[in-house]
Structure formats: C-alpha cells, structure tokens
C-alpha cells in the first residue's frame, strides 16, 4: 500500500460512521436500564463517551459508577455489589478490571465472577491475548466489548506516510507481554517494508522496570541511527511518558505513539489511535444492542471503532522541524497549545 492509497483509506475511515440504526421510533421504556460501571483509574474519556452515547440516543439509563482507583483488591467487592443490585448490564474498564470481574473464558467461577448479568468491556488491549474472549468474532460468553488498539499494519503505514523510515527504534518494558508482541509484529512488517527494528528494553531491577534507564536507552537508539521512535501501548511507558518523549525530543528523534496520551498530554510527535471517547461510544452501542435490541452478547463481534484518529503534536513538530505531508495534515487532529517546546 503506498502512501496515497493509505491516506485515501484513512480519510474514508475518518468520514465513515458506524452503521447504527436510528432509534427515534423505539419507545423509551418506563424504567431506565441500570448499568454498573467498574472503572480502573477514574472517570475519563472512554467512560464519558459511553455515557454520552446513551444521552445522544435518548436511551434512559441509570449509571452506578465505581472507581477502583487502581486498587485490585476492591474488585471482588464490585462483583458482589453488582450481583446484589441485580443490574441490567456491567461495564468494565481496562484489562485488570475485566479479567478480575468477568474472569477468563477458560476459568470462570460463578462465585467470583459476573456470569448471569451481561457485560461489556472497553480498553482491553488484547481481549484474545488476555483470554477474556477466545476469539474476536464472538466471546461465546455472556459478554461483548470493543478493542481499542490500531492494527499494527495500519500504524506502520501511517508512520511511513509521515516519513519513510529505515531504522525504527523501540523502547519497551520487557515485563509487559503487549510490548513483546508489538516488537514481533513490527519486525515482520519491517521485513515487508524494508525497515529494521532496533529494540531497547528498559533495565529491570528487583522485578521492576527502572525509570532512570529510559533516557539512556533512547540515547542508545540515537547512536544506533534510528530515524523514528515507536512508543508501544505499554503501561509503564504511559506512566513515564514525559521522560520517554522528552528524551526523544532531546535526541531529536521523531516519535510515533500507539496510544493517545503520549501525543495529547506529552511530547510524542504524532500518533494513530482510536480515541478513548470513540471507543466508549462504540462500547455503549454494543450495550444498546444487548439491552434495547435484546441481542445475545456472544453474537456481537469484538471490534475497534472505524474512525482512526491521527494526532499531530505541533509544538514537537516545530521543534524537530520535521513537517507532516500536506495530505496527512489535512486528515489529522492537531494538538497545538502554542506553548513552544524545546529539544
């Protein structure tokens, strides 16, 4: 796929909407649907998108919102409470909440997990890899959900459409399986597109990744001659995104992020992501299929939104002086807080 074709397909996707039915004729039920929302790190865009969908579609819902505050021990309480309240649907945010509350498909325990109440999940990076579902076509369980990671091939095409890359660098946390999978996929695509992947796992001490090793790893990649840095959807790197993107900027390496935070809230140069808000909306659409249209959750495929968001961080672009092609710029959302950054 060349750059122009790729941009064409992206623009088509950007304009495309989900084929969802208009529900104006559906009579609102007298009683609102009760949805139990189990969150991992507070109210954010995916939860907002989920909530707004019901408002926009005029579907009355009563949301029972619980935040674990990244504390795993709270999750069994949530399971018990949801069961006791007898809600219509459970919404789980993130891999941890989903796995702990819904169980994996090969280990479901009706005493510990929610089984009888239908559930939808969001922001699970690898629903099949994490064993939430056996395959993305169907959960074969009483749950449905969405994925939110952009397919690697799309990411690489997007990256190449900004600037052809010969040597792609990647810093990652070796303890996270996601990143290892990403590295393998990148290597395979590199063989196809003719670029080389140079990886730099962060140091691990006492079974924990070392924050201080991030910047030296980036410097090492610079020395290895990489011309683009790939930032995987890695929790450790997401937390330390300022250090990572700051180091990349200091080394004058343009960076591409697979998740929105490094571009939106830090100094990654650009990214191709599904916005959390959009993912939340799509998850709500799945919930609607179950609650309003009485579809079996197992009949709903696990899919990402069709609308890809290309985000360009303009202060970083200006600092690096590596400008995006006109065609890409026309399709991108631009982050430009006018606050100049310095390498």
């Amino acid at each position, binding site marked *: 796929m060349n*750059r122009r074709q790729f941009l064409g397909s992206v623009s088509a996707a950007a304009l495309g909407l989900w084929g969802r039915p208009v529900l104006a004729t559906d009579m609102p039920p007298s009683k609102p649907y009760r949805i139990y929302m189990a969150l991992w790190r507070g109210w954010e865009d995916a939860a907002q998108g989920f909530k707004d969908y019901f408002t926009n579609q005029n579907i009355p819902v009563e949301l029972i919102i619980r935040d674990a505050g990244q504390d795993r021990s709270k999750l069994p309480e949530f399971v018990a409470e949801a069961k006791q309240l007898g809600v219509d649907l459970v919404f789980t945010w993130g891999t941890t909440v989903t796995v702990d509350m819904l169980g994996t498909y090969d280990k479901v325990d009706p005493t510990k997990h929610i089984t009888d109440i239908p559930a939808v999940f969001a922001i699970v990076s690898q629903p099949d890899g994490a064993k939430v579902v056996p395959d993305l076509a169907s959960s074969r369980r009483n749950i449905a959900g969405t994925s939110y990671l952009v397919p690697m091939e799309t990411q690489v095409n997007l990256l190449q459409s900004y600037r052809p890359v010969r040597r792609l660098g990647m810093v990652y946390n070796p303890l996270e399986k996601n990143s290892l999978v990403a590295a393998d996929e990148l290597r395979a695509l590199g063989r196809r597109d003719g670029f080389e992947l140079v990886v730099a796992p962060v140091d691990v001490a006492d079974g924990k990744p070392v924050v201080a090793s991030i910047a030296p790893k980036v410097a090492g990649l610079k020395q290895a001659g990489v011309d683009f840095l790939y930032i995987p959807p890695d929790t450790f790197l997401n937390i330390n995104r300022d250090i990572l993107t700051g180091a990349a900027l200091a080394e004058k390496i343009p960076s591409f992020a697979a998740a929105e935070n490094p571009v939106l809230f830090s100094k990654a140069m650009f990214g191709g992501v599904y916005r959390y808000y959009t993912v939340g909306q799509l998850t709500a659409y799945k919930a609607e299929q179950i609650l309003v249209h009485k579809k079996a959750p197992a009949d709903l495929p696990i899919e990402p939104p069709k609308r890809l968001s290309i985000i360009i961080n*303009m202060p970083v672009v*200006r600092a690096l002086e590596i400008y995006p092609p*006109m065609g890409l*710029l026309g399709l991108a959302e631009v982050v430009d807080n006018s606050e100049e950054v310095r390498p």
Partner: protein
Amino acid sequence: MRLDSSRSLLVRLLMLAVLVLVPPMGLASFMALDRFEQGMNPELDRKAAAVGRDLVVQVERAVAYGIPVDKLVGVDEFFAQVLSGNPEIRYLGITGTDGGILFLRGALSGQLAETYHQQSGGLTGAQDSVDGTTTQIGDFVDLALPVKGRAGLVGAVHVGFDQGYISSRLFSIFYDIAVVLGASLIVAFEILLFVVVFNVSGPMKLVAEAIEYGKKGDFTRMPGIRADDEVGHFARVFNATMRQVDSAYRGLMAYIDEVRTGHFDRDAAEKAGEIAERVRFLFRFDASGAPSFLREKLSSDVRLPLFLFIFAEEISRSFMPLYAQSLPLRLAWLTPEVMIALPIAVFMTGIAIGSLWGGVVTERLGSRRVFQIGLVPAALGCLMSGLSQSVFELSLWRGIAGLGYALVTVACQGYISKTGGGSRQSSGLGSYVGAVLSAALCGTVLGGVMADRIGFAPTFFVSTGLVVVSGILLGYLLEKAAPDQDATTESKDDQRGLSRIFLNWRFSVLVLFAAIPAKIALTGFFFFLVPLMLWNSGHELPEIARIMVLYPLVMLAVSYYATRFSDQWGWRVGQIAVGGILGGAGILLAALFDGTLPLLVGIVFLGVAHGMSASPQLALIPDICWVECHHYGRTRVLALLRTLERVGSVIGPVLAAIFLPLWGAEGAIVAVGSVVLGMAAIFAMLASRYGDGPHLESEEGAL
C-alpha cells in the same frame, strides 16, 4: 454491392434522409456547442477559484501551525491528487513572496518562472483581493491566490488551465456527435435499403419478371406477393388480371373443345383444332389450372438482421481488452497480458468451433434455422459478458457469444452464396462483406462513445438488445418468406472425404499463408494491441473507437472497388498476395515511429490490405477447389476456409500477449508484423505457381 434495380429510388430516399437528418442535427449540435462554450468559460473560472480557495485554506492551515511555506512536505502528491480529480486543471503551484516557484506540478517551471517573477510585485498589491488575479501565460490561464500567514503575505497558490482545454473538449464532443450522426446515417441507409428492397423493388422485380414472361406468351407465373400495402394491392390487381386471362384462356379452350367435339363438320373441327394448337403455341398457361406463384430469394433479405447482429457484436470491439483489463485477474498461472488476450482468443475459438459445426448444420437445417439457433448463444453471451465478474468468466461467455456469431455468419454466407449464384457470386459475397463492414463501422464507433458515457456493462446490455431485435426481425421475415429449399441431406462419407481437400495444395497454401496471417494481423495487432496501446498513451474510449473505425472504413471503401476489380479482371491471387504484404508492412510501419500517427497509418494499411484480399479469397475458392465445391457444396468449403482461418484469429491475440511482456508494446507489434509479412511473402511466391499444372478454371463454366 448490388442494389438490384432499386438504385435510383434508394439513392433518392437516402439523399432525402440525409437532408432530413443532417441539417437539424447539425444545427442543434452547433447551437448546443455554442451554449456549451459560453457556459464553459465561467464554469472553469469558478472551478479554478473553488479549487484554489480550498488549497489556500489547507496551505494557510499548515502555515498557521508554523510550517514555513517553502518547507511544506508532500505537496507534489497532494497536488497530484487534486489534479487527478480535476482533469480540466492543467497545473498547480505555490510561489514564495518573491515569485520564485516553490512547488509546481503539471507544468514545467521554465514556462512560468519569468511571469511569476514579474508578477510578484503585483501580487502584493492584490493582497486584499480574495479572488486573486488571473493572468494569461502562453497557452495557460493562471489564477494566483494569496496565501497569508501570521505575519502577512507568505506566497501564492497558482491554479492553471490550458487555454486549449475547452477547444479540445469541444472538438471531442463535436467528433462524438459527428460519429453518432454518421453511424445513424448508415443505420438509416440499411433500414431504407431493407424497406425499399423488401417492400418495393423486390416485388416490382417479380412483377417485371411475370410481365416479361407474359410478353413471351407465358402466363404460367404470377408474382407471389403477400403484402397489405399499395404494392400488395397492385400485385393483387395484377394477379386478378392474370387469373382473369387464365380463365379466359381456359374458357376459350373449353369452347374450342366444345366446337371440336360438337361439330360434325371435320373441316371446321380441324380448323378449331389448328386454332387451339396455334393458341397453345403462342401462349403457355399452367396445366394445373391456375398460374403458380413466382418467388425469388434475395440476398438482401437477411441484410438488415445481419447488419444489426454484427453491429451488436462489434460494439465491444474497441474496448474488449480494456474491459478485460478492468476485471480482476484470477488465474495466476497465466501472465496478465495473456489473461487480457484470453477473452478475444476464446471468442475466436468459439467462432472456429461454431463455423466448423455451422457449415454442416446449415446444409442440413437450412440457413434461416441456423441463423435463429445461433441468436440464442449470441444474445446470452452478450448479456453475460456484461455481468461477468472475472476475466475467466468473461472469456467463457465470449466463447459462447463466438459460437453464436459463427452460426449466424455462416448461415448468412451460405444463404447469400446460394441466392447470389453464377457470375454474381463475388458481388453477392461483396454485399455480405459490405453489410458486415458497415455494421462494424457503426458498432465500433458507437461502442466507444457508449462505453465512455454509460460504462462497459450497460453497453453489453445494449448489444444484447440489438441481437434480440435482429432475431425478432428474422422471425418476421421467416413468416413472410417461403420456406427454405436449400436443406439437403448428406452422407457421412462425404464429411470425411472433405478432409482430402488439404491434398489440394492451392487450398492449403491459401489457408496457411493468406487467410491465417490476415487473421493474425486482425486479432493480434488490431483487436488486441491497438486498443491497449492507445489506452496506455492516454486516449479516451471514444477516441480509441474513432481511430479503430478507420479499419472497417478503409476496408469498406477498398473492398467495394476490389470486388469489382476482381470480378472484372479475375486477378484474385494477385490481390490476395499484394494485400497480405501490404498488411504486414503496415504493421511494421506502425512500430517504426513513435506516437499515434504511425499506428493510424498501420491501421489504414491493414484496412487496405484486407479490403483488397477478403472477398477475392472467398471468390477464389470455386476456382481452385472446383471439384470439392462440386462434391461437398460450396457452403461447406467456404465454411471450412473460414474455420481454418479462425486458427489465425485464436493465435493472434495469444501470440501478441506472449510477445508483449518480452519486448514491450512496440516489440510485440514488430514481431506480429514480421510474422504476417513473412507468411504473406511465402504466399506470394507459392501463389505465382497457381497457374502451373492441371488447372480447373476452364471448368468454371460448368458450375
């Protein structure tokens, strides 16, 4: 072609048709074009402004994000996308504040640089004007729109039009109209010819014949005309008179008989007997009691259905390889070039099989029946070609269409060659070739225009409709006309015996080195390579069709005179030899130089070559295969020749498709041309000995 005795009436009607059709259409077209031109200029200006404003917005957005205008990335691709979506825009560019060209696509910077530099001062002045400034630069109309950044003017976006664009568009539309007009005149001519011959001149000829008999005292025949129009009325009155004369004769004879038997005077009886003898000697009346009907089969009976049928089949001529190219290629074990050639090759194979079979079937079932049978696969093949989803599927349906095509054409040839008869054989076949070529003419040009306007698939549906109309027309004619008399039964031995025709070296040489190379040239070069080359050099479908129509056009003109010439001088072998060499040389000529013109010359040469040799080839058959024609019937020998030459039709596109990836388009043309020229040279050498040895031409009179 022979128009019987109806020429002057037909010519007058045709002139009337031209007078009625051409001036109003010409006037209407002229007025429409004038309106079009008037509307086009402001339309183009608006379009330029719209495209320019859109580009300015995007460039200004980039500039606002802090990207310096001279450091914009991917502008070329960005422009390319806009240009491909707006073919009327010639070029797009961005200049800096000093008028220096930063980005330009679609024109050479040398053509514009000087004007832009001079303009740069003016542009600053026009900073306020959002509409920009329009300048004439050579043949281009340049619209410059200012691009503003945070600190004021940073450059300009240029949108350029070709001054010649409007006139070239107009010219092309005008050409399309002329082509449609010309084609409709040919259709009008064919219909007039049919109407006049079928309704007026044909019956009149019969009446004249009956009168001619009557002049000699022969009252046994009267014209068999069944029609409800004036001609039919006239015929009925004429026949009633004939019957009256007939019954008067019978009354007279009865009276004489009565006198002879009733009179006892021997002298008077003898006298009456003498008178009866005298009357019988001077006048002949039908013994059965009523004059029999006089009917004649005319070769022009099938002309219109045949014309419509060929017209339908030729519609896809100019775009078949391009249509194949547009479909997904499924079979990986063939090169894409061969895949594109496949529908043509399979079509030709279908024709080969069909004509082989058609020859036999025509002898048994009669021409009209075979014509009807052939219409079914033809219509189905046409319809399904339009619905095909892959090249493989298309090839299959083309094969079936080819089968139908062959049945229909063989039936017509057999019919015409039977009705033509005697010394007019070459003219009769010339009439067949004439109908085929004028249909090819209309089909090719209208097909190109249609495919361009409504797409490939709907064009096939139009073809299907025409095939169906042709069938309905034939059904109507069948009802009207007398049943076939040409159905004969033949034993199996005879069929096997026909293969001995190859022992006739004159026939084999004619097939191998004249008929086959002519078809290789036609299908390999003309049907396959020409559309592909023209398309690749950027010609549009109607243009390709207009160029390709040169072949039947030239062939039509040449074959008319070539047929006359061959009938008059009998120099058939020479015409075939010269034709073959001309064709091969023409193809080589097409590849020697670059561009469209040599290709055009090659097509014209091919038209001349085939026009010279096509009908002499058929007419030569009775000369060189007298014995075989006598034994197996001329129809079958002709069908055999046509079947064998189809081998060349099948080889042609495949050969060209094999050459194409090896040596490129021009190399492939050279290769095909060399093959054709070489074979034609061999024919010329061998055919010079046609006169040697036992010759059968002296026996032609016995035919």
